[in-house]
């Protein structure tokens, strides 16, 4: 993700990160057997994460589109207009 220039690709990478975390959650809940059943708290959390991630991507894509409209590029390395 760090070496990518395209905002879109970066967003995709972020999604992968979240998925990895989700996987961990599912795995942990699977390992915690209570009376033979997995701990569903963790798995429930995964659904929340997926939903939220979707919302996040929706907003993110909108921003990327706006960026493309105004700049005709989505290369994040060009985003250095801030003075300091």
């Amino acid at each position, binding site marked *: *993700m*760090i*070496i990518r*220039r395209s905002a879109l690709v970066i967003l995709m990478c972020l999604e992968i990160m979240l998925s990895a975390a989700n996987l961990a959650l599912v795995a942990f809940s699977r390992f915690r057997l209570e009376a033979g059943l997995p701990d569903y708290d963790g798995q429930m959390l995964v659904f929340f994460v997926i939903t939220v991630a979707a919302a996040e991507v929706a907003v993110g894509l909108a921003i990327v589109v706006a960026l493309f409209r105004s700049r005709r590029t989505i290369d*994040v*390395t060009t*985003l*250095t*207009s*801030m003075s*300091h």
Partner: protein
Amino acid sequence: MSPALLLLLPLLSVVVIFFGTKWSGTLSALVSVASVAGSLGVTLALFSTDSSMVAMNWIALGDVLQVDIGLRWDRLARGMMFVVTLVGTLVHVFSLAYMREDEAKARYFGCLSLFMFSMTGIVLADNLVMMFIFWELVGVSSYLLIGHWFTKASAADAAKKAFITNRIGDFGFLIGILMLFGLTGTVSFTGLENWLAGGHAGASAGLLTAAALCLFCGAVGKSAQAPLHVWLPDAMEGPTPVSALIHAATMVAAGVFMLVRVGFLIEASETAGLVIAWVGGFTALLAALMATQQDDIKKILAYSTLSQLGYMVMVVGLGSGEAAMFHLYTHAFFKALLFLGAGAIIYACHHEQNIWKMGGLKTRMPITFAAFGIGTLALIAFPFTSGFFSKEAILDIALHENKLLFLIAAGVAFLTAFYMSRLLVVTFLGAPRSEHAGHAKEVSVIMFVPLLILAFLSVVAGYKPVAELLQAQLPDVHWNWFVFFVSLATMLAGAGLGFLRYLDKRSEPKVIPVLANKFYFDEAYGWAVRNLQDGLAWVVRGLDALFIDGLAVGGITRLTEGVGCLFRRVITGNLQAYSYLFGVGVFVLIYFTVFLR
């Protein structure tokens, strides 16, 4: 009638002159003269009483610290007070004429009254702090009077020099007071006396000596002993009556007076006495040597004063306060006489002070000449003048206590006779060497009456009945033919040499640079002030700007700003860099949290 009146009268005069007369010269002069005459009257009226009183609690802090404005009216104070008020009165009267045309007469008389107030305070003080208070005030009034003509650079500088030099002495004086207070918890003379009598608990001999010598520092400054003598000759920049009053008869004697007041302390330490005696003897010799080559009439008298003060200090150190006070008393009259005489001459010669531009004044100013002559005789201890008796006493004590100092004292007697006869010969005899001298006239009656009174006293004051009447301290010495002959011989030799060498000379026959330049004391001090003090001050200021303000304060400021700029660099505005840093941050944080414990 109480001695407090002596303090109040001049104080009142100061207040009235500064706030009540709207700077009217005549009015101020009258007030001032009235107050000093009143003081003289009170002194005379109180001659037979002996008292002490507390006029005011100046500082009262429970039983921890008690400093009073207290008055001690004993024989010592009475004798000194008589000298101060009498000479003061005469000088005030003399000033009426001498300062007639001065623009700032009111300021002059106001300062004179201030001086009288301060001097009275010193004389009456019953404790060290009070003495120190008036000691400083005397310094200020002296500063003001020396700098009376302050637009003249030399006068302003001389005033400054006098004050600062005195302060150096006071530095020691104050430390002495502090030590004694720390040891005893009191600053009153009575308390100190009792403490000493009770075996001075808690004080080592060394500390006692140190305390005594510290007090002596004050006297060194005020009485212009070597090496702090340099201010006195310069102080002659002030009006001549001031020189007579302050820088000859009274203020400079305050140091001696103070030493006598704390004589019980000096007696308690042999070392201190010895040091004091040697400083006195050394000053006497040094000043006498310097006096032989001066050309300014007032400076000659100033060095002579130094030399005589040296005598007094020496004899205090040798353990006889009485002899010192006796000499102080006689010296006050004849030295005031000489100064006022010099003032009359200067006035007559239109403010000419160089003796080589005078000459032949004997015929033009006969009364002044007579008076001046009597003064000279008393100073060189011509037998059966007042000066003779007091100097005899000093020589006698020196002979018994310390042979080496006796030799020095005798040498000084010789030199005194020499330079005084030089002064007399060059000024009064021969032909006038300048136009002003040629046109000199005898001064007015208001000026020569004080001269005559002082001349009379210079002759008779030394006789025991008179001295006792005037409350002077009389030393307990016996007639000693050896001393008499030594004294007579040195006097005759000195005077003879002076006459022979200077009669009808038009200028100094042989200039001895080292003496004419006063052993280069002023040059050395000037160098030290310029290079050591001012140089150090500049260096310190530079170091302060460079290191403390520049390197420490400025450095910290710049360092902070620099680090700030450095931190700012991290925020590049580049998203990838941010992500990268974010990642590094995560690793560092995890490493630190989990593994670095």
